[in-house]
């Protein structure tokens, strides 16, 4: 069965959706688009799809990933033009890739996720440097029915943290090969605060949550955008 990777961006009001709400919204989008989705077998057939790493409520993104299987081979262009018009306002499909049969499935390999964060206040360089200089930073993760409460070292999952001068955000984005987005950049201009470039590692063994970083740095994140997502090598 042919597999495809879909890359969406989410802007404006849909940035306030939770991961679960996004999954439901995109599943319904695919049903509306009438692409020949493959369904799971059995008692309650579901479309075969998997999603990239969840994003915090309130964050916009240029790289929301979704993998689907179809019953029939279509070109990426055909898929693009079937899905894009049925997306809710605020979502756009930016890319559709055909995946080779032996390409590993989404979630089976580590990812590097890049964010721009807008943080309340100034003078964060010290706390960032002190965080980065330590090999360990333990956070307490709450347990639930299945898991016990435990201490978890988040430091290995923080790959990069850097304060970006507000005037140089566009230049910085160019150096990492990302073009600016005219709408999303406006929040930088309209809001006070410090801009941080943050790169996290997302693996099957674990990852760092944005709220954990917020606590570790003792800051308040006002806004955020996921700007890039690549395979970690």
């Amino acid at each position, binding site marked *: 069965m042919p597999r495809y990777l879909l890359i969406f961006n989410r802007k404006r*009001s849909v940035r306030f959706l939770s991961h679960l709400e996004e999954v439901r919204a995109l599943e319904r989008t695919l049903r509306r688009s009438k692409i020949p989705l493959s369904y799971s077998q059995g008692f309650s057939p579901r479309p075969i799809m998997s999603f990239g790493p969840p994003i915090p409520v309130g964050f916009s993104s240029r790289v929301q990933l979704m993998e689907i299987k179809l019953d029939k081979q279509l070109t990426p262009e055909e898929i693009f033009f079937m899905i894009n018009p049925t997306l809710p306002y605020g979502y756009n499909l930016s890319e559709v890739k055909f995946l080779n049969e032996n390409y590993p499935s989404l979630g089976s390999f580590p990812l590097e996720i890049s964010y721009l964060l807008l943080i309340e206040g100034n003078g964060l360089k010290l706390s960032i440097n002190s965080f980065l200089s330590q090999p360990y930073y333990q956070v307490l993760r709450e347990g639930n029915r299945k898991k016990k409460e435990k201490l978890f070292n988040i430091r290995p999952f923080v790959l990069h943290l850097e304060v970006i001068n507000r005037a140089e955000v566009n230049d910085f984005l160019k150096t990492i090969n990302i073009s600016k987005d005219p709408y999303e950049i406006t929040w930088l201009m309209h809001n006070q605060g410090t801009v941080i470039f943050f790169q996290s590692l997302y693996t099957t063994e674990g990852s760092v949550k944005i709220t954990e970083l917020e606590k570790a740095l003792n800051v308040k994140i006002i806004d955020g955008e996921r700007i890039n997502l690549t395979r970690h090598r």
Partner: protein
Amino acid sequence: MNNEGLTPRLLNRVSSPSRYTGGEFNSIKKNWETAPIRMAMIYPDLYEIGMSNSGHLLLYYLINETTPHLIERTYAPYFDLEEILRKEKIPLFSLESRQPLNKFDIIGFSLQYELTFTNVLNILDLGGIPLLQKDRSENDPLIIGGGPVASYPESMAPFFDLFFVGEAEEGLLEILNKITSLKSKQTSRQDILLELTSIEGVYVPSLYEEKYSQEGVSLGLEPVNGCTGIPRIINRRIIKDLECAYFPLKQMVPFKAPVHDRAVVELFRGCYRGCRFCLAGYLYRPVRFRSLPLLQEQSSKIIENTGFDTLGLTSFNSSDYPNLKELILFLKKSYGDKLTLSLPSLGMRASSVELACISDKRRTNLTFAPEAASERLRKVINKNLTEEEIFNTVKETAKQGMDLLKLYFMVGLPTEREEDVQAIVSLVKELHKTANAHRTSKRPFHLNITVSPFIPKPHTPFEREKQLSIKDCYEKIGYLKSQLREPLFTLREHDPLMSFLEGVFGRGGRNLHRVILSAFRKGARFDAWEEHLKINYYQQAFVEEEIDPLSYLEEKEGPLPWGVINCGLSAELLKRERDKAFREEESDASLFTDI
């Protein structure tokens, strides 16, 4: 003002921002500037509750799709958003254009029941609109109430400019068009209200007052002195032909999951039954159907347009739809297991079980409402349900592999005796034995029982009956709880405190608006939510306003507060049905004739 700029700043601080973002697929954002009339449609509860009510969404689509006017939605803000709005003095806004409520020409409230009244006041207050009708000026929006409560609205009357009684599809269009032409002639607010009374179904409460005889006995509501051209009685409206009526095919696809997360088709309107306690059974007569081919076509289009994987086949007692099986088989043939069908209201009979099973083969539970456990009491309420049928239904449920049955009963029904309450215990225990004897599921059969106190509803044969006191409700429910225990049974109750408020405000007159206002001022919100209901606010309000709430639970004599509204059935018919109830005789409700 950059309205969208408000969004992130506000929404990053509330617990569930997708309640307030709007922008759902199939929502409609019209040009604010060019619309002749701008109306806000409000369901006065949380978004996820409101989104499950198809009535107000039907009107939203009707006006937005078929007229130049504009309708936008608002729901009750949760406590966290209310706090931010009040602290920062931001008026409550609509979801589509994020316009403050006081910028609209009309605000329409969907009034489903009494426990949303304080939310109505909160929404008006947060929207920057004076709460009392008499305090509003020319530039304030007209406040309209619709939904079932508009047929007995007296306790809320002083807050509303007008009510629309009955099904609003045609009437709302007439109201909007009339206001458009009157506004172009610079007509005053008062004259607009007066003019609107010529539209059938419109009730302008400020034009009516209670009149008394020379002996000081109430004669009920009549037009205020000098107001001669307005109707003495307001007839509720219904639409005659459902087959030709508008129905939205591009339905809202919410981001935040509503209680009922599904697309809907409406099989028919009205109810075949005439259960003597039920308002809906009397308010929307006669029964009007949509044809099978029309429903097939509508269903297919709605599924295509929304991408939902569940379709609700809605109506009161949807198993009364003559072609229900054909419709279910058609949809199953077209969509297979990729579509789940939901039948939210099924009559208690063995054939319903079969239909429920074909419509969703994963189903493991069913819900029915026998309401009364003794044969005698079921005759009193005109349930038209025999014990044999109850047992057959339960047998069939167990045979079909289900392991959970939910049953609804009432306590405090007219003529109820001790043995009728005891009969709930014996019936439920017998049903449990029967179910386990016939079960095909591996798991033991479980019964969920919900007990609700009877609330006498206006416009029904029981509109004058007595309602149980809170203490008596707790006593009867307590007895049932002691008899029907876990692990075999789970017994839940509709909160007697809520039933009490529903009964008082449902049958109360205009003076009760002071109690609602006072409770709201003290902080009452979301009264239908057990965790939020603060009964002490109401208790204090009753004391301060010197109103004895218990008197509203008594049997009612004389003119009724809703006497000014005619729901299509004569007082004689209701009286005859009441007499038959006391003689323990059933009626065939399909023979009721309209006046």
